Structure formats: C-alpha cells, structure tokens
C-alpha cells in the first residue's frame, strides 16, 4: 500500500492564521470576571530553616484577598516520579526548610498585580540560615551540610549500567584515553513565561488553564496536593509559547492559582516574569563527565567507562530520568561491546534542574563526541571514518536497555560528509577556518512508566459525521511544535478525508480521553500518532461494512479511503462520499454516533524507547584568532527521523534544535554564584539572535520504522546535541584549541591560544 500524499507534505500549522493575526490565546491573555492576581514570595536564602512566618501585615493590605503558606497546605511531597515515592521530594510551598534561592515560601492574591507584589514584601519570614553547597563536589564532600534529611551525604540517587566485561576489555585496548568535560546549566528560554489561571467550578471542583506540556500530569498531581479526587480537577492547555521540557511538572503557581481560587471563590491568575524564569525556573543539568574509552589501533571501540556527576539543585525533579538517560546516551551511536556507567545525582543549593530538550543527550554527547574527535586526531583517522567504523546499525542493542530497529546513522554520516565537501575542506587548511563533525541519537518517546499511570500512555477519540467531517480529541499537547497538525495529517491520511474537515480538541482533561503523558521525549508523533491510527482503523471497520452491504462484496475485497470517498479498492467506481458512508452506517446503528477510541502504550520495548532517531552534523566555523570570536558559517545536517510526516515541521524542529545547540556551544550559561543567577535577563542570558544563526542545509535519511505511524520517528530533540561538539571540533580544526568546557566563549578560545 502506498503512503498517502499527505504524509510527508509541507503543511503549514493549521492554527497558523490565528498565530499571525494575534488571535491565538495563551494563558496570560485570558481574563475572567472577578479575577484576582497572584504573586509568590520566594526564599532569599539558598538553604535555611523557616522559623516563623507572619502574614498579618500582608493580609491587612487593602485589596489583598488571600495569603497562603506551607502551613495552609496538606504538606504532601510530590513529584513526577510517582513510581518511586522516595524521590518525590518537593512541596508546593516550602515546609520547614528552603533549599535554593527562589524556593517558594508563600503566595498572595489581590485585586491587582501591584498589590499582590507589595503584599508579598509585607510577609515577614524569620529564617535560620544554614550552610549551603553550590557544587556537586562540595555537596559530596565529607561533612557537607545535609540538604534533605532523608539523604545524608546529598546523594539523591545513583544509576549504574554495566555489560561486556569492561575491565578486561580495557586490558585489550591498544589506545586508551580519559577526559573530563564540564557543561553548564542553561535555560529553556521559551518565549512565553509560565502562566496559570484557575477558576472555581460548581461542587468544589476547579478548572486550571495553564501553560504546560503535560495537562494530565498537572491534573493528577494537582488533585493530590489539593486533596481532591482527580475528577474534580480540570486542566486545560491553551496555546503554549514553547516548553522544551520546562513545563512538564506541577509547579507552585499552578497549585496556588487553583488552591486560592477554591479558597476565595474567584478566578486567580499567576504569570511569571522573565527574571523569575531565568533566576528560579527549571534548567538543564550542569554535569561533570569523566569518560574513558579504549580502542584498537585501527579505531575499533572496545570499551567505555563513563562517570557522571549531575547537579540536581535543591530538589530531585526529573533527576532519575536525567541520570538514566545520560548513561543511555553514553552508550548510543556506536557499537560499544563493553560499557560501564555510574551516574550520581547530587543535591546542591542551586535552583533545581530538570528536563530540557535532549534530556541527558546534549551532555553525554558533548563528552562522547568531543572525545571521539580527540581519539580520531591521535589515531590519525578521519573522524567521520572513525564513526563509520563503529556506527550502530539496525538491529543493534544496548544490552538490557534498548534495540535500534532502524538506524540511518551511517547513511547520515556519509550524507553530511559528501554534502559539506568534508574531505576537501578538512585536507585544505585555511587560516581561521575549520570544519567539525558530531553525531546524535534520540528517543521517540519513553517507555519507562515513571509516572506510574494506570492508563494508556496516550489515547484519543475520533468521531465522524454524516457531513463528511471528523473530530479528533486528544490529550496530546501542541506547545508550538505542530503536533495538532501532524496528528490531523495522520487521521486525514487514514480516513482519506481533507485535513481541513477535521476539528481538533486537545489538552482538556475533562473532555479529551484519558490519558496522555504529555509532550516530552519526542514522543507525540510516534505515540499519539499510533493512537490516532488505532482509532481511525476502528472507524474504518465501522464504515467498511457499509460498502459490503451496499455492493454485496465478496469477502476478499478491501475497502479504500481516499479523496473524501470510501470505495472498493479493486473497483474504485464502486463507492460513495465519506459523509454518505457515515450516514449509512449511522442509519445501520440506529442513531448511535460513530466514535472510536485509540490507544498506544509501548510494550516489551526495553527500558528506553520504541524507536531511536539518528543524525550527523558537519559545521563550518571561522575563528577570529585575535578576539576569539567564533562565527558559525554553515551547518549541514542529515537526520534519520524515520518517515517525516510533515517535512516543513521536521525542518523547523531541526533548525530550532540547531539554534539551541548553537547557544549551548557558544553563549548560553546561567552564571550562578552561591545559588544566585547573575544574568537573569535576556540582555545578559544571550540566546542566539537571527544574526547569529548560520545557514542550515538539512537532509532527511528516510528509514521506515516498524513502530512509528507510517514509519515516523522523532525529530524534535536529537539535533540539539551534535551542534556543540561539532562546533568544538571545528574550532580545533580552525585554530587548534580543544574545549572540554561549555560554552566556548571568546575568552576560552583566547586562553586556549595562550593569548590571555
């Protein structure tokens, strides 16, 4: 069966018109009658015991309608890792202690935002300041202050992976090297600051509109922290202005909006400032990665030993996932017969880190890909050739963890080598110019049920109508990436109807079918897409019978759906309009609407993902040897994202990833001194501007993944990883400076050149 033309098409986002005209509604755009404005009081200390809170002056301020502290709450610890209660360590408002500068201590709602902020300043908190630690090394040192009583020594969790007899394999290695890499903490820097608006519903229920990637997770954890049945909490995701992993947990303002809406009987809205986001918001983990690799003289990898310290910050958040994924990505891309990983997740008094685009991969692959480039230099083997010699292939496994059923890594390497003129550019040295390479791999959704959901990982409902239209209801969350369009492409392809005839309702926990774990781990296309296929095929079963009745078909016939028609595949003239077919089916069902649910849960797919993407990137730079300024001149990317469903959306994901990787490589770092972020503005936390972004050529390596809908795999995160190591290699190629630390600032380049 051929792939319908809408699969792979360049279809603009179906909601694009609303976005370009300013009509698309984001949470902070909403205003409800009687709405109150919230503000949060945060800890000024990195580590302190709360001895006393006096809210009386705040309450007395005219216009203030409610003030809450930890004492008003149920004091239940919560977190996304419901599967392991031990690492659910966060409170919606601080209980007894604060663990980072910015930890939420109290909240106020008032008639206007200024009054709410002023009231926060009137809350008196008496702290007993405790000694604090700001690096993983300090936190693990003998006698370090304990940040969480349950974890003396500050080791939040460890994760080990080991196979293949590592020590023995290293004895056979003819070449061994060990390097240590340091990567900083960086911000998601989504353009829309977090915002949440809650309104009380009848019967003690509550509705929350929030800028989230995970309405279901927010619903469940909000119900738990409010002490309400899940079904009393309705979470709606309006338009979301980007997330990148930063909006996938229940957060204090979401709780406080709902809690105070219930307490006051009025809608309450919280919207964060950019300073809140940069100074206190979730962020990507800073890590120290010590990597040891052993090879034969001709460049065959024999063993790898990776030891990683992750800076948790004051709370665990998604730490267990981070710790596991770094180890997983440390073993990816190449056939590594013997591998050992030890990841230690360490509490510090820095703002908590959590999921961010690429989750674990940017760090693991910066270390791994930089190290491989160093190996190539020392062994005198071209870095692309070295990669090809060791590249994973379809069917390869990370033992006990995952299997790559499709793998276009080798093809991607060959493509960027040829398309970039690599061989010639690498051979012909030009002053200040350099070219570098790195590879990447990523998951197409996670299979590990850390949220411990009892529902399917993703679900949808499809309804079809006698006017030829359909309605897709899904809890999958479009946060800008375009999944609302991609899912409709899949449905349109299956039902053979015009995509514009499909209405979509998404991200409303009271309306869309339970459940969907959200937008993270590049899971939506594969998982929610499979659920759409499931539902669509059930609908098609209902409709096919109509043709069999109508034409008295032989049992061996198949029914096709295309061009808004339903017809006998072998005899296309025998058929009818899609709407007419629905009408006839409806008659046959004596009025029962045609609706079907679809589900997807990855089963028996190891510990990581049902499908891995792969990619390779070659980057050309020019380095000003006098100023150390690096200009990225051209990016060549080849990416195996299976069969792209929407080619333009896939390109957009790749280019967005490159942008983020570019910032990670050269400019971004939340400069944190004693737990305080020193550059909490977009003026001083520089994400690349349009002028910084290089031209980018991308090439799809099409593999047909057996698990993905129409063979699709992920596209949204893999490419965030290779940019930094490829730039690092290009800088080395240009001026001979190796970087084991990000970002590679002009200062570091000049230090490497011995000029500072």
């Amino acid at each position, binding site marked *: 069966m051929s792939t319908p033309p809408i699969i792979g098409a360049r279809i*603009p986002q179906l909601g694009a018109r609303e976005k370009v005209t300013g009509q698309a509604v984001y949470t902070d755009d909403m205003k409800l009658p009687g709405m109150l404005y919230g503000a949060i009081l945060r800890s000024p200390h990195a580590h302190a015991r709360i001895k006393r809170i006096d809210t009386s002056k705040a309450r007395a301020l005219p216009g203030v309608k409610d003030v809450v502290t930890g004492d008003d709450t149920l004091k239940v610890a919560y977190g996304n890792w419901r599967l392991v209660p031990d690492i659910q360590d966060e409170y919606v408002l601080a209980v007894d202690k604060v663990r980072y500068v910015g930890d939420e201590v109290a909240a106020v709602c008032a008639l206007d935002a200024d009054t709410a902020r002023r009231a926060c300043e009137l809350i008196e908190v008496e702290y007993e300041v405790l000694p604090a630690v700001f690096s993983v090394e300090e936190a693990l040192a003998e006698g370090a202050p304990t940040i969480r009583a349950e974890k003396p020594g500050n080791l939040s969790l460890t994760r080990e992976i080991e196979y293949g007899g590592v020590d023995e394999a290293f004895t056979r290695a003819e070449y061994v090297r060990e390097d240590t890499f340091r990567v900083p903490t960086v911000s998601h820097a989504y353009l829309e600051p977090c915002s949440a608006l809650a309104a009380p519903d009848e019967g003690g229920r509550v509705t929350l509109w929030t800028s989230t990637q995970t309405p279901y997770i927010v619903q469940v954890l909000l119900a738990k922290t409010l002490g309400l049945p899940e079904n009393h909490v309705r979470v709606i995701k309006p338009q979301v202005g980007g997330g990148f992993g930063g909006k996938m947990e229940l957060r204090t303002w979401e709780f406080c909006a709902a809690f105070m809406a219930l307490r006051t009987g009025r809608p309450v809205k919280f919207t964060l400032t950019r300073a809140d986001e940069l100074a206190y918001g979730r962020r990507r983990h800073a890590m120290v990665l010590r990597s040891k690799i052993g090879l034969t003289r001709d460049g065959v990898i024999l063993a790898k030993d990776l030891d990683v310290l992750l800076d948790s910050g004051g709370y665990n958040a998604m730490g267990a996932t981070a710790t596991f994924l770094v180890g997983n990505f440390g073993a990816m891309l190449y056939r590594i017969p013997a591998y050992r990983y030890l990841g230690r997740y360490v509490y510090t008094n820095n703002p908590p880190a959590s999921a961010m685009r690429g989750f674990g991969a940017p760090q693991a692959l910066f270390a791994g890909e930089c190290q491989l480039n160093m190996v190539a230099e020392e062994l005198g083997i071209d870095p692309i050739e070295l990669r090809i010699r060791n590249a994973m292939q379809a069917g390869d496994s990370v033992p006990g963890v995952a299997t790559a059923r499709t793998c276009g890594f080798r093809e991607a390497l060959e493509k960027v080598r040829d398309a970039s003129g690599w061989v010639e550019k690498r051979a012909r040295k030009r002053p200040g110019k350099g070219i570098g390479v790195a590879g990447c791999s990523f998951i197409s959704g996670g299979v590990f049920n850390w949220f411990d959901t009892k529902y399917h990982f993703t679900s949808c409902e499809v309804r079809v109508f006698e006017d030829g239209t359909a309605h897709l209801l899904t809890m999958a969350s479009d946060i800008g990436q375009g999944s609302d369009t991609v899912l409709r492409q899949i449905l349109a392809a299956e039902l053979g109807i015009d995509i514009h005839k499909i209405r979509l309702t998404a991200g409303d926990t009271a309306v869309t079918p339970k459940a969907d774990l959200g937008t993270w781990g590049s899971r939506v296309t594969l998982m929610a897409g499979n659920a759409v296929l499931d539902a669509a095929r059930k609908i098609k079963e209902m409709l096919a019978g109509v043709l069999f009745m109508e034409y008295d078909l032989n049992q061996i016939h198949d029914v096709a759906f295309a061009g808004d028609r339903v017809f006998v595949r072998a005899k296309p003239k025998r058929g009818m309009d899609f709407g007419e077919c629905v009408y006839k089916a409806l008659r046959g069902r004596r009025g029962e609407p045609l609706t079907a649910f679809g589900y997807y849960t990855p089963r028996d797919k190891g510990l990581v993902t049902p499908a891995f993407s792969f990619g390779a990137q070659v980057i050309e730079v020019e380095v000003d040897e006098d100023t150390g300024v690096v200009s990225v001149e051209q990016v060549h990317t080849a990416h195996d994202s299976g069969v792209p469903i929407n080619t333009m959306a896939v390109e957009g994901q790749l280019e967005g990833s490159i942008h983020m990787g570019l910032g990670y490589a050269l400019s971004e770092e939340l400069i944190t001194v004693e737990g305080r972020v020193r550059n909490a503005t977009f003026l001083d936390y520089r994400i690349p501007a*349009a002028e910084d972004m290089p031209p980018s050529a991308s090439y799809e390596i099409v593999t047909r993944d057996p698990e993905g809908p129409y063979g699709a795999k992920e596209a949204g995160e893999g490419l965030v990883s290779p940019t930094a190591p490829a730039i690092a290699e290009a800088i080395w190629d240009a001026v001979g400076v190796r970087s084991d630390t990000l970002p590679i600032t002009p200062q570091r380049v000049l230090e490497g050149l011995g000029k500072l």
Partner: protein
Amino acid sequence: MRGKASEPGGQKTLPVAKRVLELTVNGDRYEVAVEPWTSLAQVLRDELRLTGTKVGCNEGDCGACTVLVDGRSVSSCLYLAVEAEGRDVTTIEGLAETPDTLHPLQEAFIEHGGLQCGFCTGGMLMSSAFLLSHTPEPDEGEIRRGLSGNLCRCTGYNKIVESVDAAAKRLAADEGGTA
C-alpha cells in the same frame, strides 16, 4: 492633557491620579484611563484586550511586544502609554488591511513555516513590517539585522528570514505590476 496631580504647585504629588488618554490603535479611537507609568503593552493587553502583543520579558530584550508607533517599531513594554497619545499605534491585529485578509508577511510566515509556538510571531511580523517600510528589498543580512530585537526560541530564525524574503519579493512584484 495633564492630570490634576501635575498642575503647577502640586509638588508633593501623591497619589498620582489616573489620566484619560485618547489612543488611536489600528485606526480605532479609544479613551482609556491609565496611570502614568502604565506601559503601552499593558494598555493594549489589559484595557483594549488586544492580546496579540505579547510580553516575553518586559525589559525590551525579546521583541514579542513590538508594535508600530507612527510607523516605527518600538518595544511597547518600555513605551509609556501616555507617550502614545496623539500618535498612530499599529498592533499585530491591525497589520492586515482588512480583518478578512492577511498581510503578505502574514501569508509568507504561514506558507514558509516562519512560526512555531507563535508567541514571538506578532512582534516578529511587526519588526518585519517596519523593515520593509524603509528597506523594501532587503538582502539576507538586512533581514537578519532588521530582526535583531526579536528573539525566537523555536524556529532557529531561518524560516522567518525566508518568510520575510518571500513577502518582500511578492510586495515588490505587486508594486511593479501596478506601477
């Protein structure tokens, strides 16, 4: 129009009264009472409910709040609403000539994938409109420099640059056709 609190002699002026402003936004005239420190972005969003103007940083760094005042792009989060009195303000809601049509820039952003989450899009379009107003046929560098005040975290900008280029070419062709 000065409020009572600013009359001569009123040195110890507390509290400062709201004042009534006459604003012209997208060709419509509004009367709103605002405090003197209220930003244009706040008035557009909270009073006029023109929420296509976004506030991404409130510090003039991100460009999501870009609007045109007398045809020039400004960061409305750093622009006092009182300063807009007597001037023409154009927001993303007024970029197209009529409500049922799109500006060629808007069409190009849709067609070329110049948007993802949409939060920066309004500001990005207003900056693009300003660019084309003084440089109708910009080269790639001019487009990138023209968008220097607009951050985007989703697209990596390249499809935005393509969109502006396509719109400029279309506008130039239309201009040529009618001349």
